[in-house]
């Protein structure tokens, strides 16, 4: 900008051209000005508009005059300087916008400049919520709020107010919807579990309050007879409270089922029945009766955690070592398979999932074989969620080996790695370290592996278990002699006679069926592993028969 004249005087006098270049006024002047400003020519061209040619040249003759008398308008307290555009009040034209002094400090500015600045401050950088008013506009020097007078329009205000409220309500709203979805779906699963375990009649008895409450009066009632509607609504609410166990417990069935497949459950589950027993005081008579057989449903389910623990213990003591050995036999001798991600063989899954439970004493955490049940009482007064583990991963079994694109013909090698890596935690050969699949959990706490497939399997298995148990119960009914499984004949006459054996109740069959299923599954798996270990040793590689063009059989 060498073309700028050093003296303010000439600037001042030619200020009419300057102010004519203000944004809102004639556009043609600006390009001209810019052009002249960037020219490298002598100072005479700086403020040039064509008609003013002679004036600047006259001015320039004065520039050699002595150094600036009033060098700076800054020093003159009466001259206002706009802190945004830096122009003085001496440069005002009739078109300059009025000066404003909006805050206690000494800063003043043109109204136009202020409005521009405020508009920029208020426009949020993300163009989504432009309509929301920004934070208060503060003077940069004294931080006092700069107030604006806007014309009032009530509609605008109302709508903006609503938008603000709406914006705040988004997060809570989203959370509510999400949790309501989860709740309802858990509830649905819970209902399904009840039906599959207890059968249709008993199931209905348990769930009846739920079903009744689901019926709602038509909308017209609300409008036409408000008092009745109110009573109905209040009635429904009260009913919810009375049957709180249903509303709280049913949705819990599914998550507890899933959690019960984790190691976490081992410490919690045995405690729950104690809770159950402790809260029995208001229960009808036969609740705690140990002497009758069959036990009441609640008792039966209450005992399940113990059954589960007992089975786990047995399994560990008797089979765990062998199983480990068999699995190890299938591994390549130096220990490494490719297993990275999911060891998802049906076989693999079970054990790999067990991995998590590694503790220092190298015990295999074998998962359960109890039934997975939630404990519901026959009379709706006592249900308590009490879920147990299920190691079953039924459907996945056949499809696993191909998962993750792994080239594993043998799923077990995957697990073996996991196992070994964990069991020899201290002495793990470095080889095995990189093989530690992602799903091996970090702390020995949670059994669930972190690979999504394995998690999905676990969850699916848990959710399906009630159904499976129910079906096993039905299977039992088919297989066993009628005398064991049918209710006494009198019940056909419509009189309900209490059952004489556990298997005569549908839920009893489901319970036993579920347990048997787990036991059977474990047995089959053990057999398969043993067999695979055996067959492993007898593998041979076939020669290629060059005469016949195929592998020599």
């Amino acid at each position: 900008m060498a073309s700028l004249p050093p003296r303010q005087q000439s600037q001042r006098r030619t200020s009419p051209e300057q102010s004519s270049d203000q944004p809102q006024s004639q556009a043609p002047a600006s390009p001209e000005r810019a052009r002249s400003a960037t020219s490298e020519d002598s100072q005479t061209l700086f403020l040039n508009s064509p008609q003013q040619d002679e004036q600047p040249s006259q001015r320039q003759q004065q520039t050699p005059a002595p150094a600036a008398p009033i060098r700076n308008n800054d020093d003159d307290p009466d001259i206002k300087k706009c802190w945004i555009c830096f122009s003085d009040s001496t440069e005002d034209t009739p078109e300059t916008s009025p000066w404003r002094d909006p805050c206690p400090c000494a800063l003043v500015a043109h109204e136009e400049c202020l409005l521009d600045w405020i508009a920029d401050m208020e426009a949020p950088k993300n163009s989504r919520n432009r309509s929301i008013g920004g934070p208060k506009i503060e003077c940069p020097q004294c931080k006092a709020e700069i107030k604006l007078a806007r014309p009032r329009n009530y509609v605008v205000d109302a709508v903006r107010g609503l938008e603000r409220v709406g914006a705040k309500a988004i997060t809570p709203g989203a959370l509510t919807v999400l949790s309501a979805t989860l709740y309802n779906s858990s509830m649905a699963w819970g209902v399904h579990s009840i039906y599959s375990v207890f059968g249709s009649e008993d199931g209905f008895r348990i769930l009846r309050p739920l079903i009744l409450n689901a019926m709602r009066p038509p909308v017209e009632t609300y409008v036409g007879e408000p008092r009745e509607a109110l009573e109905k609504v209040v009635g429904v609410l009260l009913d919810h409270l009375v049957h709180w166990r249903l509303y709280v417990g049913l949705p819990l069935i599914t998550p507890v089922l899933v959690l019960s497949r984790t190691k976490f459950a081992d410490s919690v589950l045995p405690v729950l029945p104690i809770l159950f027993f402790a809260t029995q005081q208001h229960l009808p008579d036969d609740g705690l009766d140990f002497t009758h057989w069959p036990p009441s449903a609640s008792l039966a389910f209450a005992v399940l955690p113990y059954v589960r623990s007992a089975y786990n213990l047995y399994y560990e003591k008797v089979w765990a070592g062998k199983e480990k050995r068999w699995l190890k036999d299938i591994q390549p001798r130096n220990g490494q398979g490719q297993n990275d991600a999911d060891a998802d063989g049906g076989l693999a899954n079970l054990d790999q999932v067990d991995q998590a439970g590694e503790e220092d004493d190298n015990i295999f955490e074998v998962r359960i074989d109890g039934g997975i049940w939630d404990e519901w009482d026959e009379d709706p007064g006592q249900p308590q969620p009490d879920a147990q583990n299920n190691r079953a991963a039924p459907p996945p079994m056949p499809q696993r080996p191909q998962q993750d694109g792994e080239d594993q013909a043998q799923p077990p090698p995957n697990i073996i790695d996991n196992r070994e890596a964990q069991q020899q935690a201290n002495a793990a050969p470095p080889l095995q370290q990189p093989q530690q699949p992602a799903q091996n959990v970090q702390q020995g706490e949670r059994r669930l592996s972190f690979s999504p497939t394995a998690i999905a399997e676990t969850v699916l298995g848990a959710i399906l278990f009630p159904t499976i148990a129910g079906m096993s119960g039905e299977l039992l009914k088919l297989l066993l002699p009628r005398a064991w499984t049918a209710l006494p004949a009198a019940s056909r006459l419509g009189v309900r006679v209490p059952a004489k054996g556990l298997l005569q109740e549908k839920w009893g069959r489901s319970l036993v069926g579920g347990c048997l299923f787990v036991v059977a599954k474990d047995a089959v798996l053990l057999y398969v592993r043993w067999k695979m270990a055996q067959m492993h040793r007898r593998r041979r590689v076939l020669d290629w028969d060059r005469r016949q063009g195929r592998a020599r059989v």
Partner: protein
Amino acid sequence: MAGMSSKRLQKELVKIQGTLPPGIALVSAENLREWQMDLSIPDNPIYPPTEKYRLRFLFSPSYPIEAPEVVFLASSNPERKIPIHPHIYTNGIICLDLLDTQGWSPVHNVESISISIQSMLAGNTKAERPPGDAEFVRSNRQRPRDINFLYHDPSV
């Protein structure tokens, strides 16, 4: 809007051509879009007084409502390097709240920005680059004004 920016820049230029604080010098201001200044830091062993650092100011038409883009420039002739500072990246981008949309206001000007940067350097005791400097320099494609800096270190 362009009129406002030019007008104001001209006024600033006049003032800058007058007096500037020590250590700050105007290098070029040939147009109203890009200016260059040289900074030198007195009295800080990390920045020897013989070394000068080149700042480039880029103004938009809505200056001063919008902050100018200020970066350090490195060149070999004349010799100019990027100063070492925990808030200055090797590509010259400066992480300073003043230069961001949130912290900028039209009450600042080129001179005050230069003074702020100079004092930021003068008061620095750590001769290190920002964490993640290499990664940032390699992968950054945004203009400084689009980058969301996190201003978390008031001690430097």
